[in-house]
């Protein structure tokens, strides 16, 4: 099944899993491959997942809600959307333009959050499987 993605090739005969090794090596399976199951349940990886979710879940809900609100108001509250704000510029056009602004704000916030909170944690998780990467 992995033939299509041969970035790391599995040896034909798996090596021996030894259970006497220290704890960190559990993250590398006997055949020298990363033990993804073990990494998935490791504390560092779960912390990474929590941090990812903490940002993308609220941010996604927020921007979708804001977009849907704009679309629904345009469809069903045309009167409100055509209230003039600055001269002939009305509420709808302003809200539409603000969609661009919020998109940029969320994008930059995500880039910043990734750099500060996600990337270091990714490095931590990668360190768990480091020896393997060198073998591969």
């Amino acid at each position: 099944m992995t033939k299509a993605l041969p970035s790391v090739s599995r040896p034909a005969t798996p090596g021996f899993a030894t259970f006497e090794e220290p704890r960190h090596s559990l993250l590398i399976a006997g055949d020298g491959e990363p033990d993804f199951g073990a990494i998935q349940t490791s504390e560092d990886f779960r912390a990474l997942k929590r941090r990812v979710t903490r940002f993308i879940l609220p941010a996604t809900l927020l921007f979708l809600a804001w977009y849907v609100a704009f679309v629904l108001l345009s469809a069903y509250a045309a009167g409100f959307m055509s209230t003039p704000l600055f001269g002939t510029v009305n509420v709808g056009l302003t809200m539409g333009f603000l969609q661009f602004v919020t998109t940029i704000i969320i994008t930059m916030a995500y880039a910043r959050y990734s750099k500060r909170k996600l990337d270091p944690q990714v490095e931590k998780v990668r360190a768990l499987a480091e020896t393997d990467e060198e073998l591969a």
Partner: protein
Amino acid sequence: MTGANTAINLTVFGVFVLLTLYIVYRASTRNVSASDYYAAGSSFTGTQNGIALSGDFLSAASFLGISGAIAVNGYDGFLYSIGWVVAWLIGLMLIAERLRNTGRFTMGDVMAFRMRQRPVRAAAANATLVISLFYMIAQMAGAGGLMALLLDVHSKVGQAIIIAVVGIVMVLYVLVGGMKGTTWVQIIKAVLLLLTVSLLTIFLIGKFGFDMSAMLDRATQKSPLGEAVLSPGVKYGATDLSKIDFLSLALALVLGTAALPHVLMRFYTVPNAKEARKSVVWATWMMAIFYSCTLVIGFGAMALVGTDKITGAPGGENSAAPLLAFQIGGTVLLGIVCAVAFATILAVVAGLTLTASASFAHDVYANVIKHGEADPRDEVRVARITAVCVGVLAIVGGIAANGQNVAFLVALAFALAASANLPTLLYSLFWKRFNTRGTLWSIYGGLTSCVLLIVFSPAISGSKSSVFPDADFAFFPLSNPGIVSIPLSFLAGFLGTVLGGEPADREKQAEMEVRGLTGIGSGLR
């Protein structure tokens, strides 16, 4: 527009084509391995790829279609721009990095990662081919309209010949340049396009004394709709049904963007997930600037050219931007704007051709037919042959769809992408239990329901603006099917998984999740 202008237009355009072909040729001295051909050896930086990404995405639909839709329908045309900008947040936060970490060349790599390879890859390739073809047909129709204006060609036969020429040039780009060459074309074109629209915008704002309100005021005077063009509802506000059509379009735009195969494939041209993220940040900035400019250009065209003149011109709505250019800068500016629009079409179609051919060669030929043991040289050869076939199909389709609003046609491709791809991608990335059967149900469920609804919609038959205006088999009332087919695909994927089939492969799921977030095991740094 007389013969002399035609000469200028053709010269500017010809220079662009020759120049880019030369660059494509130089950039692609070695295109031997599959990785070179499909993903430019993953050698581009995030910044370069971000610019290319916006080049790939800012199609003729965006430039000609949207400025035209705004110039004619005002507010209702603006929706396209907003959907297309906001949509990048999905690409940024949910898709880009995970895709880069788990896949290699195509969308099928990700969808089939933890599923049974052959059926899922075949399904992913089918979806890719259908979506790319729809998108391409829209671009080719745009080329026809543009040339009608540029060369003053009114006969359908003349326009058909032009569409064929565009098709041949774009296949050349792909055959000669592969992904590297195509990416450079995208970069050059994105920069040219952004410069052109920014300069036009600055000029327009300056002309109206930096007062947006004054420009809108003038626009309302020149539009037969008056004040109403600034409010929602001109195009979609008439009935309850047309309002639902509006919602359907909005949904397709925001959910389709990050699931377009040619956009997804771009993420493989960068070396790692961080660069993929940086690509989207760059692309989002460029989009936001670009679409703000099209807003000004659209209303500017309404104010200076007038709606009646635009709808009466050859090329119809799509000719708003070129007409505006002619109005303010004469033949030279018209030539430049048309050449840029043309470059846009060429570049986008080249990107689409590459994606479609990669999907067929990598997913169908190498993995389904050859069980993953194809010679990479053969794979690239198959990809090249496919590129030619796809080109021919697009030319034929483009000639058939000539005269339709490009943005509208493209919106159908977005509905297809949002129905067939997005649910499948999200489920396979975020839902542990998702299995092979769910994958197949959501891809095929979304794809077939969407295609069928389009076939039986007013876009194809039953109204004056349809592809077959004389026939009437339009029993589905909405012109964009997204609001039905997208939820249907989510439901199909859910049911297919829950109702049985083999359980998800736990080990592969763990590998996909870990690899998606961290890149462990992908060999990427």
